[in-house]
């Protein structure tokens, strides 16, 4: 299949079932809400090395937040429900509670929840207080600028991680330009995050390594510098490969983002767009590029 001047590979992205949540961070200004969100989502690119994947979904206007202050929506994903809870306690405790003027709320509705505020409250050392409003409990933890208000529990749901597209470009300039356009288009879609730096990853990995104990290592088939040494997956004219990984609350959200990304990235200078998979043996979801773009 060709989309304009770009080949679309007849392959699929292999995505995985895991658990996710949405966190709403509010603050006196958008600057402080973003500061907390950026800190909370730092070092959260890959479950393999970071124990969770997290990113900023969008900024929120005061009309969209529970306390009518500027806010940021963050999505966080981990292997299971308990892991989501642990990561939330760590990251909200260390990155949001520490940030001036913030408050933190659950941004999902679901019966399945994990306890967060009820764990963080102990930081109050007996001076904490709770409030129950409209069936939800919040904890007020005294801090040096007043109080940190945090929801007692956060809703979690089954989610999907590892949607991806791989952009094979003639050079780094073309690759970066296409990747930036794709990221911009994908971020217009809701319910997803792109967990890598500014949405883009250059160190695509394969499972395992020749070195004992390493769970993943560089995917040499996609490294332009190794074309002469390996069984490469790259066309001759490709000298730069960039990947965009997508985590989402639903498979439909990931499909929509992948479609938008391919559409935006297919341009001169991008020779081929492919997707990463493990032969279909690991992930629960297969998102075929041809089917996606034909639909």
């Amino acid at each position, binding site marked *: 299949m060709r989309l304009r001047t770009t080949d679309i590979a007849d392959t699929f992205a292999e995505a995985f079932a895991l658990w996710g949540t949405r966190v709403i961070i509010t603050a006196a200004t958008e600057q402080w809400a973003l500061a907390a969100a950026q800190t909370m989502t730092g070092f959260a690119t890959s479950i393999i090395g970071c124990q969770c994947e997290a990113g900023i979904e*969008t900024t929120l206007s005061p009309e969209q937040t529970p306390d009518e202050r500027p806010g940021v929506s963050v999505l966080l994903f981990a292997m299971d429900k308990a892991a989501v809870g642990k990561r939330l306690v760590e990251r909200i405790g260390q990155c949001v509670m520490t940030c001036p003027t913030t*408050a933190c709320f659950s*941004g999902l509705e679901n019966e399945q929840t994990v306890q967060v505020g009820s764990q963080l409250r102990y930081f109050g050392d007996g001076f904490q207080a709770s409030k*129950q*409003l409209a069936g939800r409990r919040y904890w007020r933890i005294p801090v040096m600028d007043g109080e940190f208000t945090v929801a007692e529990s956060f809703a979690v749901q089954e989610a999907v991680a590892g949607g991806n597209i791989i952009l094979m470009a003639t050079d780094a300039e073309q690759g970066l330009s296409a990747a930036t356009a794709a990221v911009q288009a994908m971020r217009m879609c*809701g319910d997803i995050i792109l967990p890598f730096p500014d949405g883009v990853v250059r160190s695509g990995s394969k499972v395992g390594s020749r070195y004992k104990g390493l769970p993943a290592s560089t995917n040499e088939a996609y490294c332009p510098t190794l074309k002469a040494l390996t069984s490469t997956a790259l066309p001759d004219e490709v000298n730069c490969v960039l990947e965009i990984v997508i985590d989402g609350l639903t498979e439909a959200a990931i499909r929509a983002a992948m479609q938008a990304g391919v559409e935006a990235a297919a341009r001169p200078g991008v020779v081929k767009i492919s997707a990463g998979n493990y032969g279909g043996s690991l992930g629960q979801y297969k998102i075929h590029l041809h089917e996606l773009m034909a639909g």
Partner: protein
Amino acid sequence: MAAAWGNIKFTYMNSWPVDMALELTQRVCPDVPLEADTITPDRLSGLGHTEIEKLPLHYGNQPCLLADFFAVSGNADDRTVRISGDLSKVKFLGAQMTHGSLHIEGDVGPHLGAGMRGGEIRVEGNADDWVGPEMSGGRIIIYGDAGHMIGSAYRGAATGMCGGEIIIHGSARNEVGHAMRNGLIAIAGNSGDFTGVNMLAGTIMVLGELGLRTGAGMKRGSIVSLKQAELLPTFTYACTWPPAFLRMYFIYLQQLGLALTAAHKAGSYRRFCGDGVELNKGEILLYAG
């Protein structure tokens, strides 16, 4: 953005189903108190007119039937009951209610929603003393004024209201939230003396003036007022700051029709801790602008 947001904001259904309600229209105005704890959606839904008319009430010290005082029409299949008339001598309406809606048109007598656990009561008029005593859930909305002992413990009991909401669009009198342990009482007008006396926890919000001796004996909980107040000497000033949690309460109360402004939500509040003769973990928050 196209994200399908969860319900991260509070929502309040303000529409009221009128077509399907069971209507109880007062035929005879009682001269002495009429005890009507039978009149709840719990008891009335699913019953036919004849069964409803034969439900027992107490008129003074005499047993009587519902039909002696009310004409029955409509049905309560959707768990909605409307009752109208001069009900100022009708006691215990909605007592022990667990679900459904009770809509009262006219002034209502004491013990409204006593021990209520769920559902909603609305009063298009004034309410007498003892609104929602020892209730643990549901919501009572009074569009007029209310009497003494709102959401309170009965005399001799250790604990008052344990949950739910009482919203009063007018003013209330003394001992609002006496020994309350949880829940929300909001008063758009003024409250009388001893607001939050012996309060164990929960939240009382008074948009008007507080009476004397507010929070006397309170252990935990919050009493909030938009006006300044003379407090007991056992309350100690702590700081002035904009509490984030109050913003959520004000947003919620705005949806329930209380007149709150952006300045109230964004404003700072003076925090007083007390009562020092008790646990000293309660707070009174007074709007500072």
